[in-house]
């Protein structure tokens, strides 16, 4: 079992400062996701960890030992690439065998491991196929098998599901999640898909503009983002202006705890599903529009301006509700869900 750390890592390509002072710790056997928009340097980070690229400054530690000077082929950090990159001139079996063969492991041992891996990945019947005769999901399992058969110290997954169609994607996510737990391999998955990151990992590192914005549990990232940048990237939300004084934030929707922030202007973040619309409880409002999406309906509502509530202008909010019975033009009431509401700057 192996932990992994990167410490103050910087990487530029020419004038393009891709990774800025990134520090990240992954514990032994942990499954961590790195989440960020396309082009934010996710693949580059994995290549740095694997040793396929060299950082400009900072250090990479695997199993507690600094491996800045360890060549890629000896690091034991294996990447499953975005497009799988199976060797086209080798059969499925030969592909899986590649990493074992170059290590000069005995033939019988290799054979045993390959068979076991083919079995785990449920591709035993494809052993003699060439990659081009495989479907996307099968290719992915071969790529995973090729990496896992080496029992890597750290497994690096580069958007492994983005090339699969939705149905297959869910199956493969579950499959990988189960596999990771069974094998107990320290795993880092990079993705731009927040659902995927939340679903699969215990902790998520959000990288935007080359900086590590927040490294936290999925729930905290979703409900308690540190910045509007992270909040916006994760999902849509209402932002309501207000003031903090004495660790308390107050705005038109009420008072909220702001224990970690100093006094001054701030914003309350409410996800669309953290507001509740009803016929009776809360603040009166008027429904402006309604978008029916099947399992949820998104309403846009307006709270009239009111000096007593501290609303110099009308406030527009968006709400997701499973109740689709409200109609535009009608009156309704809204309230903040229990324990919801997060104050940020």
């Amino acid at each position, binding site marked *: 079992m192996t932990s992994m750390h990167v410490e103050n890592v910087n990487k530029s390509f020419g004038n393009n400062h891709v990774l800025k002072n990134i520090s990240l710790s992954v514990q032994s056997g942990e499954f961590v996701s790195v989440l960020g928009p396309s082009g934010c340097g996710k693949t580059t980070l994995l290549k740095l960890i694997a040793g396929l690229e060299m950082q400009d400054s900072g250090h990479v530690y695997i199993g507690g030992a600094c491996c800045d000077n360890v060549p890629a082929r000896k690091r034991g950090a*294996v990447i499953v690439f975005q497009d799988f990159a199976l060797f*086209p001139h080798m059969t499925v079996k030969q592909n899986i065998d590649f990493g074992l063969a170059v290590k000069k492991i005995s033939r019988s041992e290799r054979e045993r491991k390959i068979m076991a891996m083919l079995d785990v990945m449920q591709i035993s019947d494809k052993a003699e196929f060439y990659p081009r005769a495989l479907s996307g999901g099968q290719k992915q399992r071969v790529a995973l098998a090729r990496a896992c058969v*080496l029992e890597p110290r750290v497994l690096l997954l580069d958007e492994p599901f983005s090339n699969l169609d939705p149905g297959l994607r869910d199956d493969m996510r579950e499959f990988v999640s189960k596999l990771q737990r069974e094998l107990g391999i320290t795993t880092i998955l990079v993705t731009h898909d927040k659902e995927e990151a939340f679903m699969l990992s215990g902790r998520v590192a959000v990288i935007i503009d080359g900086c590590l914005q927040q490294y936290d549990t999925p729930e905290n990232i979703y409900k308690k983002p540190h910045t509007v940048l992270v909040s916006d990237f994760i999902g849509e939300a209402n932002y309501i202006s207000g003031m903090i004084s004495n660790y308390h934030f107050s705005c038109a929707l009420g008072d909220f705890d702001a224990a970690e922030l100093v006094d001054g202007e701030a914003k309350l973040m409410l996800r669309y599903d953290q507001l509740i619309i009803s016929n009776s409880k809360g603040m009166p409002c008027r429904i402006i529009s309604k978008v029916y999406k099947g399992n949820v309906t998104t309403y846009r509502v307006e709270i009239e301006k009111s000096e007593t509530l501290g609303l110099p202008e009308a406030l527009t909010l968006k709400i997701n509700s499973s109740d689709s019975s409200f109609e535009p033009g009608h009156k309704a009431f809204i309230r903040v869900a229990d324990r919801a509401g997060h104050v940020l700057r």
Partner: protein
Amino acid sequence: MLLGPFFLIMGIIFVGGLIQALVQSLGYLPAFGMDSVSLEYYRRVLTDFRFISSLRHTFYIALTSSALSVALGVFVAFLVHKTKRSNKFSFTLLRVPIVIPHIVVIIMIFHIFFQTGILSRFAFAIGLIESAHDFPLLIFDRGGVGVIIVYLYKQIPFVMLMVISISRNIDSKYFQVAENLGASPFQIMTRITLPLLAPTILSAFLFCFAFGFGAFEVPFLLGSPARQTLPILAFIEYTSPVLDDRPAAMAINVIISVISLIMIWVYAKVLSILTKRGMEGAIV
């Protein structure tokens, strides 16, 4: 879709020439008053000791020169690739030997390697040999060394250019994956690069072989008078004052063509096997 007319024209010229040669090889030359058709000339050619030894010599020259060209070309291409100094300039430099006409190369090689050539004089000057006759016979020799040197001079750069430009097109991701899975640079070369280049190397080999097999001027000017390649044999028969030799020359030409066609067939066969293995990405 301009390929259609292109192949049509090429086909007419090739098939037309071949039919003409075929007809004449069967002994049908009405212009010379020969109008009986028979396989007599093939029998004569195929049982002729000169033909058999010439065939063997031609194969020897073609095989040796193409195998050496490919081996050295690939090897040097890898070295060049390694040093990463294969810039535009060296690329242009590589093209020079390819565009120089054979005849110029022949004269160059002659001046350098002949017994009275530059190398010989140099060896004499530093006291390695006592007279020009002590210098090994590299031109007009029975081993065809002079001929092979000319081919190497032209073909090694050709193979290099092909290999370098194709290996640039191989997705560099494969090399990264291989390294990531623990392969050493040597293992990457033998297990990834060479297999992916196999179709290219095969094409290059065949091209060199076909040239060495069918070329006329190089063995004609630098080869041993005692060891003639097939095209020269055909030429000698063709220009012979004996009328009867004309169909024999044509029979030799037909045999050369048939051998070439067989080679193309083998090439296509091997290529299709490689393609089945999913290596089409690297095919020229």
